[in-house]
């Protein structure tokens, strides 16, 4: 792996490795990919993502791309979208998909789990208000089903409604008929997906690149 390995001792890499937890070889591979995507530029913009052919048939493409430009995922406690990102931010976003090391203790795993769920939460919560409202959730389900043809609008809505109802039932328990459930907060989201074992599922293998040539 890593036939094109740059010198592992590069100072920037040390910083990045410490920050994100990637190894040097992984960072250099990702750097190469970054340069490929940005046409050897310093920053990536949304258009660069649009030119990845395989990504075009992904139903949640736009949300994935948005996630890269969302300051909430940069681990700097910022908010709001940006227009372009440097390699550092690219790497930080990618680091959300690292698997937890098998030597982690339970609380470290819990931290990893929270991080990953936070990433997904941010993807759903498009207006940055800290809750996933019914409309936003409906949008998520719509996007998921957007690739299938001949779909009645009601079904997507009813699925989202049923899901929302489920969250509300499990989180709130008892509500008066005229109370209103604002939306899924992050705590409710955690509780909802508690049994999901996301730290085992939301992982990508980062060793090497397979695309033979430049993507164009």
């Amino acid at each position: 792996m890593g036939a094109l390995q740059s010198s592992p001792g590069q100072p920037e890499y040390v910083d990045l490795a410490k920050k994100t937890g990637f190894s040097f070889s992984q960072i250099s591979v990702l750097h190469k990919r970054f340069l490929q995507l940005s046409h050897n530029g310093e920053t990536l913009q949304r258009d660069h993502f649009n030119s990845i052919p395989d990504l075009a048939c992904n139903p949640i493409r736009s949300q994935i791309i948005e996630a890269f430009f969302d300051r909430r995922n940069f681990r700097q406690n910022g908010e709001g979208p940006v227009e372009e990102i440097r390699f550092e931010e690219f790497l930080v976003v990618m680091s959300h998909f690292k698997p937890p090391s098998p030597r982690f203790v339970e609380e470290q795993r819990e931290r990893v789990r929270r991080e990953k769920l936070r990433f997904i939460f941010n993807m759903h919560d498009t207006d940055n208000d800290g809750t996933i409202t019914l409309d936003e959730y409906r949008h998520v389900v719509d996007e998921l089903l957007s690739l299938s043809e001949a779909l009645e609008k009601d079904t997507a809505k009813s699925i989202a409604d049923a899901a929302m109802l489920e969250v509300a039932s499990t989180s709130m328990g008892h509500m008066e008929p005229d109370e209103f459930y604002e939306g899924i907060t992050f705590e409710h989201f955690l509780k909802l997906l508690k049994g999901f074992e996301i730290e085992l599922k939301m992982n990508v293998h980062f060793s090497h690149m397979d695309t033979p040539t430049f993507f164009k």
Partner: protein
Amino acid sequence: MPSRRDSHSPAGKSLLERGLLLLIVLVLLQGSVLPLGAASSPDTSHNDNLDNHQVTDERNNYTKKPFPVLALDYHHIQTPFEIALWVLLASLMKLGFHLIPRLSGIVPESCLLITVGLLVGGLIKLAGEDVPPVLDSRLFFLCLLPPIILDAGYFLPIRPFMENLGTILMFAVVGTLWNAFFIGGLLYAVCQIQPANPSILHNIELLPCLLFGSIISAVDPVAVLAVFEEIHINELLHILVFGESLLNDAVTVVLYHLFEEYSGAGKVTVMDGFLGIISFLVVALGGILVGAIYGILAAFTSRFTSHVRVIEPLFVFVYSYMAYLSAEMFHLSGIMALIACGATMRPYVEANISHKSHTTIKYFLKMWSSVSETLIFIFLGVATVDGPHSWNWTFVTVTVILCLVSRVIGVVGLTYVINKFRIVKLTTKDQFIIAYGGLRGAIAFSLGFLLDKNLFPMREMFLTAIITVVFFTVFVQGMTIKPLVELLAVKKKQEAKRTINEEIHTQFLDHLLTGIEDICGHYGHHHWKDKLNRFNKKYVKKCLIAGERSKEPQLIAFYHKMEFKQAIEQVESGGGVKMPSAVPSTVSMQNIQPKKAPAPAKPAEKAPSQLPKGREEEIRKILRSNLQRTRMRLRSYNRHTLVADPFEDGFGDLLIKKQKMIELEKKIKDMNNYLTVPAAPPDSPTMCRARLASDPQAFRTKPESDSVPTIQVDLASPQSPDSVNVMDEFRRAGQEQRGEEREDEQGLMMRPPSRPHRSGEAADGKDPQKLTRCLSDPGPSADEEEDEPFLP
């Protein structure tokens, strides 16, 4: 893996009843021993008797005898009688174990069954009869093994299997090879170093040792299933060990044939080894190919069975069995063929067949595999008592020790290599369980039984050693694995039901990870899976799935399935259950819908009836006409349609319906602005299919919408939070007379989470009355494999 045992141990059974049952079992045991023992060669004697009868008949024409009023002719029915008796014995044993809950908690069932087999064998021997050759290899491989493997293959959880396929293959192929050569080689070495007394061990050559090694090294799926089912270990470990036990069949077949062939010749050259590798590929891939072909055929056939629903399960069984036999015909791996067939056909068949057929398939498979497994273990015990034994301390103990050692070394070594490629690494605990779960079973014994006595003079010694290893693994490892799992705090299987949120996020995560892989430029696991799914959706589903369902996305299929399940649950529990989780909650759709700003202005003054008059009238007309059509449907039952006509129960229903109609009209009059979760549109293919799927004359609501422009009440849109779900209203009205309501007529929709009035709420919480099960589903037991989406 779902449990095959649906019975509960009756807690309150008195001692007397237990004693009585045990007595009956013992009597039956005694009764069965004698006729079983009397069987020498059933077929030939039967034929002889037939001839005799004919001859004596002719002779009887001359010498007139008094007409025999009552005669005993045992030979006439001997073979089927004995088979039935064995099966009955096995089933009664199973029943008996669950009467003694403490015992079945400590000792796994397989051990108890082997013990029973030993007892029965001992009894037969004591009675002085010959023990029937029950574990005859043909019987085993052609009749007893296929149901178990088909059950495993049909319900194989595809997603975890595919995700861990690399690991499983490594363990199955490399691990088994390592085991075989290690055990065989070291055994040969040990056999040679017997300086003191020149025992028979010296005569054993290398090749028979390697053959023995290959027989004994394969992990046995039957034993693994039997033991692992009871310990409820987490899915990953289960699929690793179980998958290994299934896939190592190809290796075993090749090694066995290879060494058996060349044991006569005495030498194996490099060329032969090379041919062996090619043979392995042919056996494995050929088996899978054969299975896949039959699976596609079965899926294609099921596309056309909408009019003859009764024989749908038959297609599944017969095609699978044919796949197994075809593979065995070419000496390919029958087990892999069966697995491939079941796994291939399942998503398409399930989309095509009716719910009842699905239930039938599930229960038949479970029943057959359960009986098969029980019989296998009992026969193992019987054959132990019978089989010619030649005990050799050295050989046997060395074998046992070598098996353990090689398994441990193999697992540890392989895990070290595998972990370099896995994202989620295997921990030491995992490795221990994998090593400890490598049980041997009846397949090894049968393979040993198949050995030719002339070529292998030490066959008996081999058999004894095999039996010892099998006993050791099943008894010692089987009994201790449960407390070890507890002790090591290995993660257990999660019992939670799949919720719709999890389903949404599983899909979401799939797409997300595929996207990230594409961005990284890495053609990983998700990339290929996505490509396969797209190919499947575009081409394959269109061919193999009938009608509308081919276009149904997985999420929607899951959603409808969930609705359907809930509806059945509600029907059975009397309508007291809310949706979707069992968490009692008063949260309803109303709490979720965003309130419009002008709406709260005058909440109290809202007129009760929200529907315009004309619409009400239309709705009423539609409902009435639907009811009439239902009543007028033929109430005949013929074997081709197997209509479980819910309206067959007679005139009482007509009265109920009439009452309900009146109730509903009353309700429509003073309607509450109650929002419910909207049902699927009435003409959605799943709903139509689900509704009374086995009946081709199931009433359709679609034609109404041509003449009357309603029914499509837009339910959940924010513009009309006050609209009502008409169907649900009807149902709710029906729920008022819970006592007499006997079926779920209007199809399967989500129940409104709350009632218009609080008092009704309290009434609901009361003990619901059991309704008759109109859809004849034995019940929503905690089986999760149904929640798996059709396609991964």
